[in-house]
């Protein structure tokens, strides 16, 4: 499977009379594009605003961020399966991307209406929080989008995310027929057989257990070819992921993060250098019984063995009981003779690390991406005591419900506690250390 990724850098976005990419500038005909969004009768609001790195801007609430990508050669579409898109297997041919920007889905629509899972993510374009997240270094074209509240939550999700993808599609389409200024070829070609075979095991939270057993598998959260339900371990070629085969809005695991997955790129770029990248096994988490959890872990180790893995990197995108699938996968791999490293964030500077849930001795090699549960990791003190500074402008909703029982209204522009954020895909340089 060979994929050529052509990058079109975007150094500025301007609103103009037409939509085109030229000399690293993306020109956008906002009126025409928005008309298209609003042609879906389910959409009640669609507006565009631009946030630039360094501005005193807070974007709230962020549901997803999508890097515009389009397949110009090879089967399928970028971000397949989700919101009714084609499900052809992706990962071959040529894909174009607009680099250095994202389409941010700014919406009050909740991922689902059970289990108290509220929107909690915002981006600051400057200040200490902006230092932490890769999104703040991008030109963020914000789509303020809402759906008819009379619709089911599933339809509302479909409507707003479909609009986001439509916009990303239109923008990426500006590169069709153009020669990409930068190209990179991704192919798992033959390498020195002495190099150790390594697999990457991303553990993906499924909202199925929280969102009600009645919902269908195409629920609009992190989805593999559109499926977000609890599914058995899913072997994947890394190229599929570069084409957005795992995508969708959920907390911090945005489509942008998934398509730009740094762990995956690190393994890919070292393929043939000091390792042999044998593939990806996407594992779903938050099964509701211990038996199911254990079964998935054992099956994951089996698939890793079938891929010939000598080593595995296990990472996860959530918190709480999903850690059991994660750490039991580590154990199952270790027991199958596969050396394993776990990449995780930490929750609490007073020692509330996820490993507390079940400190299995097999988790003896852990990379900590920082303590972010209740605070951002700037400075040296306990993170939770620090508030993020006020911002001059808010893109999105001006107020937010907070508090233990969500009955306090706060001004989003004012000082804010940092959101929960895990560096699931290994972008940052932070690490938690004991002192």
């Amino acid at each position, binding site marked *: 499977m060979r994929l050529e990724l052509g990058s079109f850098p975007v150094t500025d976005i301007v609103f103009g009379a037409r939509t085109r990419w030229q000399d690293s500038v993306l020109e956008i005909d906002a009126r025409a594009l928005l008309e298209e969004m609003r042609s879906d009768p389910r959409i009640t609001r669609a507006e565009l605003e631009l946030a630039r790195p360094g501005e005193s801007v807070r974007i709230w609430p962020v549901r997803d961020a999508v890097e515009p990508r389009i397949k110009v050669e090879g089967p399928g579409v970028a971000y397949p399966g989700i919101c009714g898109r084609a499900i052809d297997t992706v990962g071959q041919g040529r894909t174009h991307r607009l680099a250095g920007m994202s389409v941010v889905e700014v919406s009050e629509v909740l991922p689902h209406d059970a289990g108290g899972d509220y929107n909690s993510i915002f981006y600051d374009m400057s200040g200490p929080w902006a230092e932490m997240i890769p999104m703040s270094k991008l030109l963020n074209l914000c789509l303020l989008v809402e759906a008819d509240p009379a619709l089911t939550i599933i339809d509302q999700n479909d409507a707003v995310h479909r609009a986001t993808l439509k916009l990303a599609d239109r923008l990426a389409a500006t590169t069709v027929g153009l020669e990409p200024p930068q190209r990179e070829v991704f192919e798992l070609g033959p390498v020195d057989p002495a190099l150790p075979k390594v697999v990457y095991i991303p553990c993906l939270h499924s909202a199925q257990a929280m969102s009600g057993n009645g919902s269908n598998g195409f629920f609009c959260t992190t989805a593999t070819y559109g499926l977000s339900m609890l599914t058995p371990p899913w072997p994947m070629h890394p190229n599929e992921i570069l084409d957005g085969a795992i995508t969708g809005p959920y907390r911090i695991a945005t489509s942008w993060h998934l398509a730009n997955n740094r762990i995956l790129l690190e393994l890919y770029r070292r393929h043939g250098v000091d390792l042999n990248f044998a593939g990806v096994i996407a594992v779903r988490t938050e099964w509701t019984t211990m038996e199911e959890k254990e079964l998935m872990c054992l099956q994951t180790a089996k698939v890793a063995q079938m891929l010939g893995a000598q080593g595995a*990197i296990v990472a996860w995108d959530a918190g709480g009981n999903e850690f059991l699938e994660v750490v039991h996968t580590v154990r199952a791999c270790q027991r199958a003779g596969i050396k394993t490293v776990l990449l995780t964030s930490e929750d609490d500077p007073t020692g509330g690390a996820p490993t507390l849930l079940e400190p299995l001795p097999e988790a003896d090699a*852990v990379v900590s991406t920082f*303590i972010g549960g209740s605070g951002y*990791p700037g400075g040296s003190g306990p993170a939770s005591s620090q508030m993020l500074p006020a911002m001059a402008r808010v893109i999105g909703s001006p107020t937010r419900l907070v508090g233990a029982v969500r009955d306090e209204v706060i001004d989003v522009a004012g000082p804010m506690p940092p959101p929960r954020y895990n560096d699931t895909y290994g972008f940052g340089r932070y690490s938690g250390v004991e*002192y």
Partner: protein
Amino acid sequence: MAKALRVVHYVNHFFGQKGGEAAAGLPPEVREGPVGPGLALEKALEGRGRVVATVVCGDDHFSENLDQVGQQIMALIKPYAPDLVVAGPAYGSGRYGMACGKVCELAQRELRVPAITGMNEENPGADLFRREALIVSTGETARTMAQDLGRMVRLAEKLVEGQELGEPAQEGYIPHGLRKNRLAEWSASRRAVDMLLAKIGGRSFQTELPLPKFEPVAAPAAIGDVSRARIALITDGGLVPKGNPDRLESRGATKWLGYSISGRDRLTPQEYESVHTGFDTTLVNQDPNRLVPLDAARELEQEGEIGKLHEEILTTTGVWTSLANARKFGREMAEKLKLEHIEGVILTST
């Protein structure tokens, strides 16, 4: 440093030259200037400070009344207006270690004066006070006193100047058991791949998150006969009366609550619900007995299989609850249940 540091030194009866075990019961007293190891401490300060006073106390006396004697010692230290309090080092001596830990904890908290001590990592005082106190890691015996005091002084000076300390291993102190963020040289993804290749290749690597250890807890003795025992129902599944009148948090709980079930033989969905955010509460909210099995427990009580059901359900939310809070809830619940003579608990968790 412009001004010489004013240091108060704490030592036990033995190092305070009051005698051996016979002197272990002596109450605290203060002496002007250095005593015993205080001379070496002053030498280690190399003229940048002097020991203005020494507090001496018997180990038994102190360790038997840690809080009370600790306060007395603070009262003795305070008039000297020190810039720094140094305790010990206590090496392997458990009672002395506890005393040094307590002195440091109180000096920082009550007098707002930087404090440092030293002891062996196995010293029970280290386990008890490492969270609050800065403890330099030492051997088990006083043979290395001069070097140890030198290391303590170097670290203490950083403390006084408000400098951030480096990592425990490099600075030579016993970790507080707290975590903070640090910028590493490479991205997490690169560190993960590097660590994996080291592990596969059999080379040494260092985990960034050591596994926590839990001391075993002795199992309480079994109940002889439950048909005569008082049994309480507890849940961490966020059960509350409908509408959540006491505002129990749906995650990161800061409290626990008790609700009377007197006169009730089941939990109805009209009256109770779960506010837990870590799982789909639909099934529990259809029938809260799926979370707290009151209906079945009442029947067993009537049928004589349970002696007496405690008339109060204790409840909290166990998701993203800090370890410290969870411990506190457990201690407080235990205290209350013991007062009510509860002999056994059935805890239902999600």
